Structures are given as C-alpha cells and as structure tokens.
C-alpha cells in the first residue's frame, strides 16, 4: 500500500545533465522495490501546477541518521522540474509512494542484462543489487544521444559483470544505439531476462530483440501521468492480457513495468481496433 508523507530535502545535486534529489520519506524506502515510483507535488503551497510529477525511485537507504531516505533522478524539462532543481536542504515536499508495479525478479540465478536510455537507468541500480543477491549475473548496457546524457555510468561499472556504453555521437563508448550491441550480448551470455527502461522507441526495439532471442523482457514505461495513483486514466497504453485480449491499461497501476512481449509498442498512442471496448467505427459514439 502506498503512503502519502511529508519528506524533507536532504540534498539536490547535479549529475551530468540531470539532478539527483535525496529526501526523507517516512515509510516509503522500507516498502520500495526496484521499478516502483513516487509522485511529488511541485510548486509549493497554492501552486498553480496541479499535477504531481512521477519519478522512479533511484536509490533507497532504509536507515541512517535521517531514518529512511530515497533518491530520485530527474531532468529539468519544465516549470515543475525546474522548481525541484531549486529546492534547498530542509525544504518540505509532499510525496506519495511507493507506486506502481515493480520489476519481476527471476526465481533462478540466471543471466540478466539491464538496458537503459538516458536517465532511464535510475531504477536499474537497485534492481542490479537485488538480482546479484539472487546470484544472477548482471550486465549493463547504457545508451544516450551524447555522453552528458548518460546517467550512472560509474555505478553500473562497479555493479555489473560488464558495462557497454553507446552514444549516438560516439562521445563515449560505442557509436550507435543500445540495440546495436544488445543482440550480441544476449547471444554471448545466454541471457534469460532483459530489463529495460527508457524512451518508448527504445523499449519497443529492446522488447522485440529479447523476444527474438527467446528471453523474457521487463520494460518500465514513461507515460505522462496526471495522478500516478490510478484514478485519472490518462497514462494508458494497449497491452495484451493473459486471455489474449488487448486492453488500455494504466501505466501507474498495472505498470510502469510491463512484460515487453505484451505491450503493443507499435500501437502506443492509439486505440487499436481490436481493443476491449474500442469504438466500432473510428471516432463514433460517446
């Protein structure tokens, strides 16, 4: 069950193009699992920004001088995140979490590859920790358009058996995209599970490659959310259920982590005609 708490900012620091916010959040770190996210209200008292901002949980410390703390990583992309970047130590923030459905973990100690684009890597380090505790081999693939848009390269290097970096401009690692290197890695290491987080296009390609390789894929999507708690129905995407029927599922409650072979990636942003409850003719009915 998620909780709503007042957190206190401990620090806001730069990490390349991104920011990392560390805050107390009584009750949340203890419950957080890799892939969970939190919703943060922005702008302070009486703010004109009525929607919460959602961020995957980057790190947690469930004890310490401040009790439990959590880290989130974010990019400044608008007024809300700009406000967050300007937070000072001891500022108070309203947090809801942990939210969503976390990454599923394998029962057996199998080889896993963790693939992330940009700061999509944020939840991957908690995940790597837990996978390694289970005896899984963990390899990382981090990609971005340029070097300064990578996030967590040093952490990945420390935790992974191998780290492969790709940048589209070749400023670090191999020039290209994560999907240029992933098939070779999956083949060489006999990978059973691919975990991915990043832009929709990357997830679509990674999921497709994993399925072709015969691996499971667990993809954390980034959909625009108004509430983050399952009541507004804005963050939906078409997902095939166990019964073979496509439904518009909420990424906040049914996700953000989905099986890669269940999301209809090519149809994201649309309502496919065979979706449960889809209009019989386009744009008909109310």
């Amino acid at each position: 069950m998620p909780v709503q708490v007042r957190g206190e900012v401990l620090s806001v620091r730069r990490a390349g193009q991104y920011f990392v916010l560390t805050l107390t959040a009584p009750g949340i770190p203890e419950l957080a699992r890799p892939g969970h996210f939190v919703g943060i209200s922005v702008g302070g008292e009486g703010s004109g920004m009525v929607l919460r901002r959602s961020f995957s949980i980057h790190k947690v410390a469930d004890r310490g001088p401040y009790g439990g703390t959590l880290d989130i990583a974010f990019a400044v992309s608008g007024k809300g995140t700009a406000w967050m970047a300007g937070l000072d130590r001891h500022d108070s923030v309203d947090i809801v979490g942990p939210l969503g459905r976390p990454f599923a973990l394998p029962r057996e100690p199998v080889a896993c590859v963790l693939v992330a684009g940009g700061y999509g890597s944020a939840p991957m380090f908690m995940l790597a920790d837990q996978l390694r505790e289970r005896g899984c081999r963990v390899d990382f693939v981090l990609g971005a358009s340029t070097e300064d848009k990578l996030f967590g390269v040093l952490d990945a290097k420390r935790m992974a058996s191998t780290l492969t970096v790709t940048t589209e401009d070749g400023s670090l690692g191999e020039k290209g995209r994560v999907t240029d290197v992933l098939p070779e890695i999956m083949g060489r290491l006999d990978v059973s599970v691919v975990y991915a987080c990043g832009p929709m296009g990357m997830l679509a390609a990674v999921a497709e490659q994993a399925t072709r390789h015969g691996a499971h894929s667990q993809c954390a999507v980034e959909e625009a959310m108004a509430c983050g708690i399952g009541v507004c129905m804005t963050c939906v995407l078409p997902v095939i259920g166990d019964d073979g029927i496509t439904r518009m599922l909420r990424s906040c409650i049914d996700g953000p982590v989905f099986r890669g072979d269940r999301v209809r990636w090519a149809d994201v942003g649309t309502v496919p005609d065979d979706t449960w409850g889809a209009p019989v003719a386009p744009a008909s009915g109310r």
Partner: protein
Amino acid sequence: MTRAVIGYGPVGGAPGEPTIDMSTWLGELTLPSPVLTASGCSANGKELDAYFDLTRLGAVVTKSVMLAPRSGRATPRMAETPSGMLNSIGLQGPGIESFVENDLPWLRERGVRAVVSIAGGSVEEYGKLAQVLRYCEEVVAIEVNISCPNVADRGQVFACDAKLAADVVGTVRRHISSEIPVIAKLSPDVTDIVTIAAAVVRAGATGLALINTTLGMVIDTETLRPALAGITGGLSGPAIRPIAVRCVWQVHSAMPEVPIVGIGGIGTGVDALQFVLAGASAVQVGTMTFNDPSAPLRVQTELARALAERGFKRFTDAIGYAHRPHDAPLSEFVAEAWAEDEHVGEASDPALPFESGAAG
C-alpha cells in the same frame, strides 16, 4: 439513514470548540457530510482507499459508466494548464455489467455510500443503465452525466439542449425508485445554464451537479499540433472555480429550493465554502485529488473548521448565505462570531472580518 454529526474537534480543532453538524440533504437522501468525490477523479473508490477512510465522506461518486465496455480515447489524454488541466479520456470503463459485478460490491463491503454516475449515447441507453441500477441497494443516488465534453460530436452534449437534457433525466427518473435522488450534471458551456437547469428539474431531477468541465484546447508549440490526441478536452481545476461558483449562484438564485452539488477546482475548505455560500447543498472534490490523494477528506475537515470559525453550528445554515439581502441582519450565530473577532472594526471591509483564507 440516520442523521450523523461530524465533529471536527479530533482533527485539528482544540477541545471545547463547537462541533459542527455537517449533515446535509439531497431530496430525501440525508448524507452525514456534504463532501463527495467527483466522478472521473476517484475511479470507483478502491484506488483512494490507501489514502483515507472513504466511509467518512458524504459519498463516493463513481466514474461515469456506460452500458458497454469502453476503451476511451488515444493518448495523450491530458495536458497541464495554469491552475488546471485538460483531459480527453473518453469515458474509459468496464461497462455496467462488470461495474455492478466487480466495483459496486467492494464499495458495499467497505460501507462506502455510492453515487453512481451514468453516461449514455442515447436517451434509451440512459434508461437501460437506470434499469440495471434500480436493483442495487448500495446506490444512494444516481448522477446523470449529460455533459461529458469528450464526445465525437464536439460540444453537442445532451446538457447543451434543454429538451434532450430533459428527455434523458425524465427517462432515468421513470426507471429509478422515487426515493433515490437523480442528480443531473450540467455543462457550463451553454448560453443560459438556468434554462437547462429548469428543464431537467421539471423532468424530475432531484438536484443538479454544477459543473462538468468546460471545453478547452492546448496547442503543443514544439510539435506544432494539438497537445491532446482528442484535439479538444475538458478543462478542470481551480482555473474554472469562478465559472462554477457563478453557475451555482445563478441557478440557486432562480431555484433556491433545488439542491445543488457544487464542483469546480475545490482544493481547500474555503474553496468549498464559496460554493456553499453561493447555494450548494454539497460539494465534490475532483481534479485536486490528483494533486493530493487525501484532498476530499481534508476539504471536509477544513470546511467544518471554516464554518465553525464563522459561527455556523450547522452546515445547512450556510447554504446560500451569500444571497442574503444587503440590509438583512446577520444570523445571530454569525453576528456573535463577528463580535468575538478582535479585528472587527479595524477591517476596512466589513465583509472580511476573519482570518485570511476567507478570500480563498
């Protein structure tokens, strides 16, 4: 249902402070509190269970349900706007059969009062929905959504046409037992809301829910296209509160005996109080639940406190209080509260003798 009393003492009030009788009436229905969730902002209740005790609210208003399952519109379905948001969900939902089978029982088991919102594509569909719901005991009222703007026929909702609106409400009324209130939810996007309100009341509406979202649009200046897949959407949140308060005021002026449920950007107790003073017998908390999942219960607590601070002992005494004539003497209890306030006399505007916040 017995008349319950909600004290605000345990929730922030000091011992010895007056207890407010928060009960209210919608036709023959008595609710222990005038604060409800708003349809489409609380799903079917379950998702908010983690944040507060839903049974403490007046009622939960469920998301508008249609006869058949419905996928809703493509994404993007929302855009944040100054002090509000646009949405274009398109009434995604499971259909009435699944709703009655899976969603209503949860509300019943929890003891949550359920106001069920229904939406149809035709007058007949509304009638069929009402027929299904008439056998559901846990339904304390029906809210008839004739004003969802996210329809194929842009803006041409039932609530924009007095005759169609009355047809829908009359049909629902005929299919529901007379002790269940039928609340018609109206659109602000009309030339004269009083005309529509009068038509649905004549057709048998017990009360009115004012207002649904108002039709709006945002253009994404990066993609150079509409921000929403549905092009237009419904604007909600504090941005539309003055429009909503105006609608409540106008309708209450014309028909003071008709219960009104006020809706529109309510995020605090004093926001809610504006609606009550304008003539609302109850209020709903909608979009601000996205900002604060516990907003509905917080608004209820704050409203009780705001009433007590102004000398009211019963919620119902405040309904429409702003309509009193200019030369009317203050009700005794309000006069007492004003006299006790040390700032009276210093204030340049006699309408503002209270702590800040009264101005909302």
